C-alpha cells in the first residue's frame, strides 16, 4: 500500500491494535479501530504492566520507545524504568543470572544485589532473600492508562474508534478484504489489521487461514496502597507484578485455566480462590507487607500459540491483511509491535528488525489436535 490517506480498519482495540492504529495515523493514514466492547477491556487492561521482553526481536524497540511514550502519546502511561527480581532460592538465583547474561549480551546492564542492598531498595523484601538481580532496563507501566492513552492519541491524529461493534466477517474481492462487517454496519477498507486477542483465530479462519491459538485465564490480586518503594517493578517467588505509583501491590502468577474460544466470547472474567495462593506467595516475598489488605482480584484471557510466541505476519491471501496475536507478552511490547504491524501494512516488511520467525509459516503441518496433544484443553464441565 502506498497512497497516503488510504484507509485501514483495525479489528481489536487492545494495546496491539491501538498501537498499530496510532503508528498508522502518525504516518498519515486514515484508521478506524473497531472493538466488540470498550477499548482495553480484555487482556490489555488486565495485565501486569511488565515491559521487559528480552527474548523478543522487538526488545530493543520496546526499550527505546517506552521512555518516550508519555510524550509521544500526549497522555500519561505511568511508565517507570528498571526491574528487580528477588532470589529466594539458589535455583532462582541461577535462573535469573542466566537472564542477566542473556540481556548483558544484548547490551543491557544489570547488577546482582546482596540481601542488604536488596532491602535498601525493597524494604519489605523477605529476610530469607539471598539477593536479587537488578536490571537497569525494562520496566512497567499502568496498562489501563496506557490503553486509553493510545486510543486518545489516535483520535487526536484523526483516527476513529468504534466501540460496541463486534466484527462478524469480511467481504473479500480480488485477493483482498474490501469490507469489514460489524454488528453496527460495514466499513470499507484498503487494508485490515486483525489483533483481536483470543478471537483472532476465529476471525482469520473466516479468511481461510489457520492460526493455532489456545486461550486461558490468568489471575491477579491487588492490595491497598503501601509506602512507595524506590523501584516498583519487583518480581520473585513465582510472581510477576509491580507496585503502582499509588502504592498498591498488583501481582499475578501461578496456574492458568485453558478455555474454549467460545467461553472467551462471554463477558464474565471471574477470578477463583487462587487469590489465596497468590496472597500466600506475596506475603512470603514481602513479609513486612503481610498486613496489607487485598482489595481486589481480576482475571484476563491470554491466547497462546503452540510455541508461546507471538504471531505478527502479513497474510499471503488475502494480501492486505496483517495478523497479530501476542501470546502473553503483548502489553510491554505494544509500542514496538504497533510499529512492526504498521510497517507490515505499509511496506510488507518490518523496517527496524527481523521478525520473520514470528510468521504463520512455522505452524504449517501442525496436527489438528495440537491442543489436546499438549494438554491445553478446557476442563470438562465439573459436576
Amino acid at each position, binding site marked *: 500500500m502506498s497512497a497516503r490517506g488510504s484507509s485501514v480498519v483495525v479489528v481489536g482495540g487492545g494495546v496491539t491494535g491501538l498501537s498499530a492504529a496510532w503508528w498508522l495515523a502518525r504516518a498519515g493514514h486514515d484508521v478506524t479501530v473497531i472493538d466488540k466492547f470498550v477499548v482495553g477491556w480484555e487482556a490489555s487492561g488486565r495485565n501486569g504492566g511488565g515491559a521487559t521482553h528480552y527474548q523478543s526481536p522487538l526488545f530493543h524497540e520496546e526499550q527505546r520507545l517506552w521512555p518516550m511514550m508519555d510524550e509521544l502519546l500526549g497522555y500519561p502511561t505511568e511508565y517507570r524504568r528498571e526491574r528487580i527480581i528477588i532470589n529466594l532460592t539458589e535455583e532462582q538465583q541461577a535462573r535469573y543470572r542466566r537472564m542477566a547474561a542473556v540481556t548483558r549480551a544484548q547490551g543491557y546492564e544489570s547488577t546482582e544485589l546482596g540481601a542488604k542492598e536488596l532491602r535498601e531498595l525493597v524494604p519489605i523484601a523477605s529476610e530469607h532473600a539471598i539477593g536479587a538481580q537488578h536490571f537497569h532496563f525494562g520496566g512497567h507501566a499502568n496498562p489501563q492508562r496506557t490503553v486509553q492513552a493510545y486510543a486518545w492519541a489516535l483520535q487526536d491524529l484523526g483516527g476513529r474508534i468504534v466501540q460496541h461493534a463486534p466484527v462478524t466477517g469480511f467481504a473479500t474481492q480480488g485477493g483482498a478484504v474490501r469490507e469489514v462487517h460489524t454488528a453496527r454496519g460495514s466499513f470499507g477498507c484498503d487494508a485490515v489489521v486483525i489483533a483481536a486477542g483470543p478471537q483472532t483465530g476465529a476471525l482469520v479462519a473466516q479468511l481461510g487461514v489457520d492460526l493455532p491459538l489456545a486461550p486461558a485465564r490468568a489471575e491477579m490480586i491487588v492490595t491497598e496502597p503501601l509506602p512507595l518503594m524506590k523501584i516498583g517493578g519487583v518480581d520473585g517467588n*513465582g510472581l510477576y507484578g509491580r507496585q503502582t505509583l499509588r502504592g498498591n501491590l498488583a501481582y499475578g502468577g501461578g496456574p492458568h485455566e485453558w478455555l474454549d474460544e467460545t467461553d472467551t466470547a462471554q463477558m*464474565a472474567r471471574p477470578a477463583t480462590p487462587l*487469590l489465596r495462593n497468590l496472597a500466600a506467595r506475596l506475603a512470603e516475598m514481602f513479609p513486612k507487607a503481610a498486613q496489607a489488605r487485598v482489595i481486589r482480584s481480576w482475571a484476563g484471557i491470554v491466547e497462546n500459540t503452540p510455541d508461546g510466541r507471538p504471531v505478527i505476519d502479513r497474510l499471503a491471501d488475502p494480501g492486505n491483511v496483517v495478523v497479530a496475536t501476542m501470546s502473553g507478552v503483548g502489553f510491554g511490547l505494544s509500542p514496538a509491535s504497533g510499529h512492526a504491524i504498521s510497517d507490515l501494512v505499509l511496506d510488507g516488511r518490518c523496517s527496524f528488525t527481523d521478525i520473520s520467525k514470528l510468521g504463520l509459516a512455522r505452524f504449517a503441518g501442525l496436527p489438528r489436535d495440537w491442543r489436546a496433544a499438549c494438554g491445553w484443553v478446557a476442563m470438562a464441565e465439573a459436576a
Partner: protein
Amino acid sequence: MNDRFAIGGKLSKPREHAQLLVVGAGAAGVAAAIEGAQAGLSVVLVDENPVSAGLMGLDVPLFYGQRMTAAVQEEGRMVERLVASSPALEAAYDAGVDVRLGVTVWGAFVNGPAVRALPGRVAGLADADTSWLCGFDALILATGARDLVLGFAGVDTPGVMGVRALDALLSRYDAFSGRRIVFLGSGNLAATAALRAIERGIEVAALVEVLPEPQAAPALMDALAAHGVRVLTSHVILRAEAAGGDVAAAIVAPLQDTGAAERLACDTICLAIGVSPAIELADVAGCKLVARGADGGPVARAVGPAGTSIAGVFMAGDCAGVIDPAADMSVAEASGRDAAHAAMAWLAGESAAETPASAGAAAGDAYVYRMAWMRALVESGGMSAPVCLCEEVSRADLLGVQPPRYLGCESRQMASRSAETLLQDGPLNPDQIKRLTRAGMGPCQGRRCRDQVALLLAMASNGSPQDVPLASHRAPVRPLPLRVLAADDESVEMRDLWDVWFGIPTQWIPYDDIGTEREAEILSAHGGGNMHL
C-alpha cells in the same frame, strides 16, 4: 499429555461443607437458616459481625464515619451485644444451625462457562486469623443493604455517616459516640432511624429534604412532629462544618436561595437518602444483576421470589430488594423462609417458577429520588465536592476523567479530555472511569462512591442511573490482609507445579537462538527457563 502448569486439580479443597450455607444473620438470614435446619439440612450461618474496629475505621462494610465509641475495640463485648440484640439467633442455635459470628464471606464461586477448575461450589470464608473454603449445595445470600453515600463539602469529616452504620452502632452495639444528629432525607428510612435515635436519648436536630414534601408515611411524620423534630423541605446541605476535626454543624439552605444558609449545630450528619442491596457476593458468583429502582438498586433476583440466574443460589431480605424500612421484621423473615423453601425445592430436584416475583420493595423508584438529591447537591455544591474518599476524586476529577494528582500530569491533551469527549465513543462505563480516575479503586472497595458515580454518570449522559452499567464487584469483597487470605492449605501440586507464567519453555528462547542448535541446548539444559513478563 497433561499441562502440568494448568490449574486443574490444584485449588485447595473445601475445609468444610454445608448443604445450605446462609450468609448474613439478619432477620432474613436467621429465618432462612432455621427453616432449613428444621427441615433436617446441615446449615451453616455466617455473619461478619462483629467486624473489627479496624474495618469500621475504613467504613467497611458500612459508612461508620468514625462515630464508634471505644467500646468497639472490646471484642467480647461486641459479640455479647450482637447476640443480645438478635434474639432469633438463640432459636437458630436451638434449631441446630451451625452459627459463625465474626466470619466474613469474601467470595462465592460456582463453575460455569468461564471457570471449570473449582473444587465444587465454594465460598471463601475468613476470620481474624485465617481463610478457608466452605463447600455448599445451596447458598442463600441474606447480606442486607449497604449505605448510600452522596458527596458534599466535608462529607469526609468524622461524624458524617450512613444510616445503616448508625443503626448498627446505636441499636446493635450501643457504641454510638454522637449526641445530636441531622438526617439527610425524609423518607421512611430517615424517619424510622430518627425515631430510633430519639428513643435512645439522642437529639435529632432536623431532617433535610430536597423535595418539596416530606417523604415518610404520615404516621411517622406525626411521630417526629410530636418530638418537635424540624423537617426542612426544599432544602439541601451545603457542607459539613468541622471543629477540631469533627462535625460541628450542617450548613443547609433552601434550594431556591442557597445564600440564605442556616447552621444546624450537630455532631453527626446521617445520610439516610437510601440504601443499596448488598449484592457483592452475587456479582462475584456470576449472578445476572438488574438495576431496579423499585428494589433500591441492582438485584440478582431472577426466578421466583428468591432465585438468581445461578441454580442453587438464592437471595433473601434487603439484598433481594430493599424492604420498606417501616415494615416490621416479619417481612424480612418471610423473605428468608421463602428463600429456604426455594433452596430446599431445588435441593430436592424441583424446578422453580419462571417469573421473578416483585419483592416487598420500598415504595417508589429509588433512582428518581436519588437523582433529585444528586442534582440538588451538584447545583448547590458545585464540582469540587468529593466523590471517592479513598482516592480523593472530586466531581470535577470524575467527570473530567482526570488522572490522580500525584501523577503531576501536565499534558494539554489530557486536560482537554472529559466524560463528554468519552461519551462520543459510547455509553459511559463506571469501570472504565474507575481505571482512569481511580474513583472506586480504594480500600473501601468503592462502597462509598459507586452509587454516586452511577448517578453522576447518568447526569453527564442525560440518562437514567438504571441504564448506567453496573460497576463490577471482585473478590475479596471485603479488604482482607494478605496474611489472613494466604492459603495455608495449599495442595502439593499447587506448590510444586507453580510457574510465574504458563510454563511454556519455548516462549523464553532468545529470538536469535530460535531454530538454532542453541535453542535445543537451552531447552535440554534447563527447560527453557520461565522468566518474567
